[in-house]
């Protein structure tokens, strides 16, 4: 948790089968996740740089705070990086 990575990007993804529409994620990470008319998360598919500490922190909150454990953060390594 303590290391700030400057390179690479992440996206937050949802397992739609596990998701039951509690809506906690939209409250914990309002800048990334919105709810649709039925209360299920709509996630921006654009990758977010890992250097954006605020977004990453709230994404982690959303991941941890999901009652169904349906969210997960996926790291996208940069093509050039090792």
């Amino acid at each position, binding site marked *: 948790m303590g290391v700030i990575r400057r390179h690479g990007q992440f996206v937050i993804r949802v397992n*739609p*089968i596990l*998701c*039951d529409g509690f809506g906690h994620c939209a409250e914990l990470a309002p800048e990334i996740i919105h709810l649709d008319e*039925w209360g*299920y998360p*709509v996630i921006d598919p654009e990758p977010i740089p890992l250097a954006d500490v605020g977004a990453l922190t709230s994404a982690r909150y959303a991941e941890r705070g999901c009652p169904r454990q349906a969210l*997960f953060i996926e790291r996208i390594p940069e093509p050039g990086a090792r």
Partner: protein
Amino acid sequence: MIPPRTLPRLFAGAGERPNSLTQHLDIFGGNSRVEDPYAELQGSGLLGRGGAGFPTAKKVELLRTQRGHHKFVVVNAMEGEPAAHKDFRLLSTNPHLVLEGAEVLARLIGADRIAICVARDNPTLVNHVERAVHERARQNSRGPAIDLHTPPWRYIAGEESALVNWLDGRESLPQFRRHKPSILHIGRGAALVDNAETCANVALIARYGAQWFRSLGTSGHPGSTVVSITGAVVQPTVLEVNVGTTLRAILESARADTSPQAVLLGGYGGLWVGPEMLDAPYANDALGQAGLSIGAGIVVALPRQACGLVESHRVVRWMAHESARQCGPCAFGLPAIADDLAHVIRGGRDGVSARTRLEERCASVEGRGACRHPDGVIRFVRSALAVFSADLDHHLAGAPCAGARDRQRYLAVPSLEKEEELVWE
């Protein structure tokens, strides 16, 4: 031996009854095989015939590099689409061709079990396949064991992850996969899932080679394919055609209406196309430029007197009912889309707002299910709105076409078991 450049291939020696093993060997020429079936399969460029059109050689390569002893070959003959009859016709004509193809695939990936899946709702077909499996087991006791499985019929039960999940002893529901393409497992063994028609083509390639296989079809989509034609036809027909013949020729040879209002390609998750596409070659590489594909080989001709929107609404409503209701966007979104479409058809001021709402909902639901079921429905709805746009304006103006008031319907849609279950809460 079947000479190159001739049809029928898959339906060779078709008679009243399914061909027995001895008949099968007579028709296709004994037990002769090519030396290296894997190289021939790679050279053949065979595309999967189940709907997605994924190259079979790539799939086999993915499974070949997997470790483990107890791999599976799953033959998918579930035939979820109500308008499709191709697996039924294929397995009740040349069942041994399909089984032989599955054996070839099993040898290629090193599988020791073959599971052939047929919906239990078609007892005739189950009977034919059972007989063929027993016949094969009597003739040669070596080789991979073939088991017949009969899952209950549902639209989504034929989805590969649902099928594999059912074979693994759980419910037949689609599963979420983080990465695609992923390898499905039954127990600890990796499973290769292929459509029955794909298996039959693999058997032909293993007998006669890639050169022979490529003598029909186009360069990007070789071989022959089986098409089920329903709608404005004298009787529902299953034909084997050369890939690349025009749609008009296919409709002609099925004795269908050759000047239909529109044609549905690729089944109920497919797309409507207008009459201007009738002269396009029926092949994935040519149709792909227009964003189309042949899907699971379904062609539905819609006659001039029918209302395309009403027919689409019936299909969408049924597809919404067939959702597994696992994912929220699909369970709630598809019934909502079906309702919006009903409002659009009813027309008036409600209809105009329903149309914008429909487009918004299509955009919001797309790509948010674990399987491709909602995406298929949305593609279908969008193409219906585009192809029947003139008719749509009449509906919105409050003057629906004559076809909407008529009671005659042309698309085969199973009746809903419980109408009230559609809006699921």
